[in-house]
């Protein structure tokens, strides 16, 4: 078996065994919840770096679901809106539309420097300069971009509040 593992996988079965072996585990104790917190991710006009790091977090290299979160594709299923990017003026309508589609009890979290105050893209003819132009930003995750682990740690911290 040791020899098999060392060799490059030559079949889908070996590849599947590899994927299982790599499966990440939540490192810290996760508080029990009735159901996972639904995350809806929205890019509103940045470099896309923060969005891609959340995409990595939602992929198979991180234990997002074991940590008590699940990414959803419909805002009606979401508890938290994770917003990335500087919020262009064209995207403001999209942010509002998605926010209104979320059920009561929703939360808004700015991920990355742009989403808070625009970062390197402050207010201009095409940009609002981050969420703070629309609403007070109470929950945010700093970084440019924050790593998937940073984002996961911050989400767990926010979930404990």
């Amino acid at each position: 078996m040791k020899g098999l593992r060392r060799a490059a996988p030559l079949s889908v079965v070996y590849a599947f065994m590899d994927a299982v072996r790599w499966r990440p585990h939540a490192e810290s104790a996760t508080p029990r919840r009735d159901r996972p917190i639904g995350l809806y991710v929205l890019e509103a006009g940045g470099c896309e770096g923060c969005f891609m790091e959340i995409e990595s977090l939602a992929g198979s290299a991180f234990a997002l679901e074991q940590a008590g979160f699940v990414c959803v594709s419909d805002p009606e299923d979401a508890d938290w809106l994770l917003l990335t990017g500087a919020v262009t003026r064209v995207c403001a309508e999209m942010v509002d539309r998605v926010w209104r589609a979320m059920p009561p009890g929703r939360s808004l979290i700015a991920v990355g420097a742009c989403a808070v105050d625009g970062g390197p893209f402050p207010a201009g003819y095409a940009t609002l300069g981050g969420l703070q132009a629309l609403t007070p930003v109470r929950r945010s995750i700093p970084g440019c971009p924050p790593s998937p682990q940073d984002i996961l740690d911050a989400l767990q911290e926010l979930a404990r509040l």
Partner: protein
Amino acid sequence: MTGMGRLIRGGERLALSHYRLEAAQWAEMLSAPGPTLPLVSCWVDERSASVLVLEGDRPLLASTPVEDRRYLAPSSRFPGAEWGERVGYDLYGVEAMEARGNGAPALDEGGWTSTWPLSGQPAPAAGGLRPLAGSHLLRPEQTGLSGPLEFSFEVHRGAIRTVEICAGGAHRGVVSRLLGKTPEEAMPLVSRMTAGGFVAHPLAFARAVAQARGLLPGPGIRDVWMILLEIERMSIHLLDMARTARGVDAQLLATHCDHAREAIARACSEQGVSRRLMDMVTCDGFCDGLEIVPLAQAVHATMQPRLAALEELQRVFAPRLKGFAVLDTRLAARFAVGGVTGRASGRGTDMRRREAGMRLEALRTTGSSQGDARARDGLRLSEIRDSLRLLERILGSIGLDDDEPAPDRTGEGIGVVEGARGDVWYWVRLKDGRIENLHVRDPGVSLIPVLESMLRGYPVSRVPAALGSIGLSPSGIAQ
């Protein structure tokens, strides 16, 4: 030299590859007999309209003055110029005469603070977002892309017939923010142009600035830049492969791509640099503290053992991608589509091949030219193998000298980089050490005019999967 190239060179030479044509010369160039040179980009401001074309693998830039806020549309000869003309109208209110297409806004969807915001005399904003035509919409949050790009379609019996793209949501006015800055002041913003090119964009900018300053980076810097670019290429190819795989429910392949991409990011982080290599490139080299040899070795050691599994899985799932979202060979050539998408459709352009110091023997990829998602995905994996081979070659002879001469200092420069998603171009003009004018061309721009052909006949529900297989960066397209 082609007829069109000869006519361009008949203009007043402004810089190494830049010629100014009077209106009559411009018109003659646009109606020149013989083949049309491949158009890389078209851009317009209040003073001039420009086209950047390729003669062989060499860039040739032609500009003509804008008179009375009008100019003869280059799209009358170069169909791919239409996007640049529409952007020019949205930003400056400059009108393209005899243009192709319907002239619909490219960026200004109505939410800006003013109309023609970069012109000397901006007009009041119309107010409210422009309603989109088309019977079906794909909202920006539904495309599966990393950024906000909106699509509207005419659909007949469940199949897409026409496509309109609105990129205004991703427009941040980056170029206007860069004007007046020194290249060094501009670099942090250029480094955040798009996450699909955290290395490629600043590197193309650095090359343009170096040419404008009459400088030639030494072989050591050149090799560091090449290594950074190949690491980014592997990472972005894995991202696009994972998205493509998820689009056809090939979750196991996507899982392996996810893990490989994350392993590269961690290898970078463990070597003390940013996970996605952001802020590594500077105008005259690379950031302090970068130890390129251990970084390249770590990434190579991380990625090499994963290739066999990726290749095996790709063989298993490739039939699901066969014949999906095909880019016709003739269209790829007509619109000078670059990168993996262009090469998978038979276009052989890879700007790395013209770089001084390139270890050409490492670039061995020859893939299918069927133009479908399977060809693109196969090419990505093949290019990852090339990247690893290139890292080996560079590490074996890092800093090897060559005889490339430094260019003359003209205050203008053109820089190009073969990024993971295609050829990234920067044109920059400096005055008193500051950026007087600038143009950025992301490879996604050349995909805009061919998307309709690639998506035609599919239901709207298949569009995200098709887009994932193409590798589009909305932030790069709209800036």
